[in-house]
């Protein structure tokens, strides 16, 4: 009888530990996504200012600038899912990268202190986003591992936890932007 009760207590303790681990990992993901959201929002605000300041100079980049404004508007819509946000963010990063490259060709812009400050702030926001994405990916990987690995997978399926999607990180996001294709539309 004693042995049975010890085994029962042991199983209960293991189950509680597994449950709490999974919950803390899930909360960590949500918590860090909050951080991602905050820096994304910061960038949206900067984008609005940047587009407003450069559009008068960059006549040829009108389509790209419009695309950026449109993407921004989509991403700001209430009620979009985390996954949609991730996709929109990737598109926005690519478009923004091409604008940064194109800005090199406008000496007037480079002489404009306001634009340069916006550019620096945008650089900062980009790095913060990149950091937030990496932190998010690590948290998601931790959670996904726990969801898929034995024995926590048993508890995870009971809790109906689903693996989450990670941000795709391309190391040379900026260098790989096909500027020609963007402008020849």
């Amino acid at each position, binding site marked *: 009888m004693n042995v049975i009760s010890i085994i029962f207590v042991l199983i209960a303790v293991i189950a509680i530990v597994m449950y709490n681990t999974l919950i803390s990992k899930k909360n960590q993901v949500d918590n*860090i996504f909050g*951080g*991602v959201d905050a*820096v994304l929002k910061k960038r949206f605000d900067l984008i609005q200012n940047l587009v407003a300041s450069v559009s008068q100079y960059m006549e040829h980049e009108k389509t790209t600038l419009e695309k950026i404004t449109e993407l921004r508007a989509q991403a700001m819509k209430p009620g979009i899912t985390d996954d949609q946000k991730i996709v929109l963010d990737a598109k926005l990063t690519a478009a923004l990268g091409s604008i940064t490259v194109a800005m090199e060709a406008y000496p007037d812009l480079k002489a404009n202190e306001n634009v340069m*400050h916006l550019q*620096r*702030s945008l*650089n*900062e926001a980009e*790095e*913060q986003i*990149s*950091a*937030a994405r*990496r*932190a998010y*990916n*690590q*948290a998601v990987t*931790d959670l996904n591992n726990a969801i898929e690995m034995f024995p926590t997978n048993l508890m995870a399926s009971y809790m109906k936890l689903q693996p989450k999607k990670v941000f795709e990180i391309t*190391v040379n996001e900026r260098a790989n932007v096909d500027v020609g294709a963007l402008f020849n539309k």
Partner: protein
Amino acid sequence: MKSTSELTDFYYKELYPSLSELEKTRLHILSQFKWYGTMGAVAFIIMALWMGKSFGLFHPLMIGIVIGFIVLASITYRFMIQGYAKDFKAHIITPLIAAIDSHLLYNPDFMISQHLFSRSSLFQHDIDRYSGNDYVKGSIDGVALEFSDVHAEYQTRDSKGRTQWHTLFRGLFLVAEFNKHFKSHTVILPDLAEKTFGNLIGGWLQSQNSSRDSVIQLDDPEFEKKFVVYGNDPIEARYILTHSMMKRIVEFQKKISHPLFISFIHNHIHIAIATQKDLFEPSIFTSLLDYKQAMEYVNTLNNTIGLVEELKLNERLWSKS
């Protein structure tokens, strides 16, 4: 900033008059020391023979005499080289630092404040004795920095009530302004646990360290192998430790053969290199004209001050100006 070869040229060309003057002093001290050494050795042998005859060669008093002679020799040595070391710092190290950058100030007797050392959170033990020397302060490429030799110790008492001193850190300690804004604490320590116990147990041990913030797993395998990172904000830690920053830190660690400790606190980077010795203390047994010796001084200085460039602390891509 000058390159190592330019500085080596400067060392041999511009500093030559001072070097040859110091070399004369060194040889003089050396011959004096040899003379005292011979006298001491003779005295020791006579005493040992006398002791051997009266009490036997392995009498406990013998140990006392040996220790007494060693202490006497080291005190004599220190006393003899005092003036030489002072001249060396005034006539060699001071102009060498000025040659690296005229914005740098050097004080051989001063040290970086204990407040900054404690602020770094790199070593968490209480400090009972704090000393140092060879303090350098100034700015490189607009980046404010200061560094010095530091020796931090703490004391314990054994069961018989005797005090024992332990070294917490001995080596070079540097603080520089960081080029990004941040509010969090991020501490990078050498990865001893994972090296000793492997990934699984070592990693678990690290996460159990309750005196530190939580462990932050980073996405650079080489960096992860060498260091463990503790921090209170996983996003900001990655904002500071970008992929390129992690690579630069790994490269720097490869260059130096001593344990490296880094923390990012209060918008500053704190770097501690546990060399376990004083940096610019000349020995009378090696000539200052010796190439290897000269390179050691030049390299230590250049690598330390060059950290600003090496870690790209002078990059102003962000809104912090």
